[in-house]
């Protein structure tokens, strides 16, 4: 039996590169309120956590996300996620 996804869930958030710098931390564990279904929903909620989050996610269209270490689109479901990361487009290689 898994919990219904509308229940409160604990998730680890990670931030990289300039998202990390603007947020002012590399990671944190948060309790998500009920009702957040997608990555986009989560971004909307994160932006409300303070001015540093609002600044970091101002250009939220360019920010990419990964759930449990896999790239996802903003429409992806966050149900069951343990680790969600936000970062700019990658620039390795």
């Amino acid at each position, binding site marked *: 039996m898994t919990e219904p996804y509308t229940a409160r869930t604990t998730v680890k958030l*990670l931030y*990289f*590169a*300039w998202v*990390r710098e603007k947020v002012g931390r590399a990671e944190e564990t948060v309790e998500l309120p009920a009702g957040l279904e997608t990555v986009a929903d989560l971004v909307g909620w994160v932006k409300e956590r303070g001015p540093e989050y609002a600044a970091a996610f101002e250009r939220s269209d360019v920010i990419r996300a*990964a759930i449990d*270490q*896999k*790239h996802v689109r903003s429409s992806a479901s966050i149900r069951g996620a343990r680790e969600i*990361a936000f*970062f*700019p*487009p*990658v*620039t*390795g*290689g």
Partner: protein
Amino acid sequence: MAVRVQREDFDVGAEIRRLTAERRDIGAVVTFTGLVRGEAKGQPITSMTLEHYPGMTEAELARVEAEAQSRWPLQASLIIHRTGELKPGDNIVLVITASAHRHAAFEAAEFLMDYLKTRAPFWKKETAPDGTGQWVDARDSDETALERWQA
């Protein structure tokens, strides 16, 4: 069939020898080495720092490598990507592909680099001589380069 994320430098010749040692079925080895250039957009840089997402980096590189293995008949492959602070002239990334024939080795190496550039969670920050840092912007041309593999 190997992926390494490390701070240390690498030796291309030694890595080739390791992949091809005792093999008699490899006819072609292609390597790509990416290096830090001394300037960016016409401005000098003094260093480049590579941040990454430990865990996801290795997983993503392994997925990219598995995809290349499924598309081309490769006898061996290797991806090494460095992290941390690097100087102009330093190595950043190494990709090696080994196959019986040259076209598979060339194509797979280009594929690995194109995918790695747009998928592997690395971020580069360049430091200017005055000490200011600048995150490198992703290039649209890197996204475009992917399209040839999606036909």
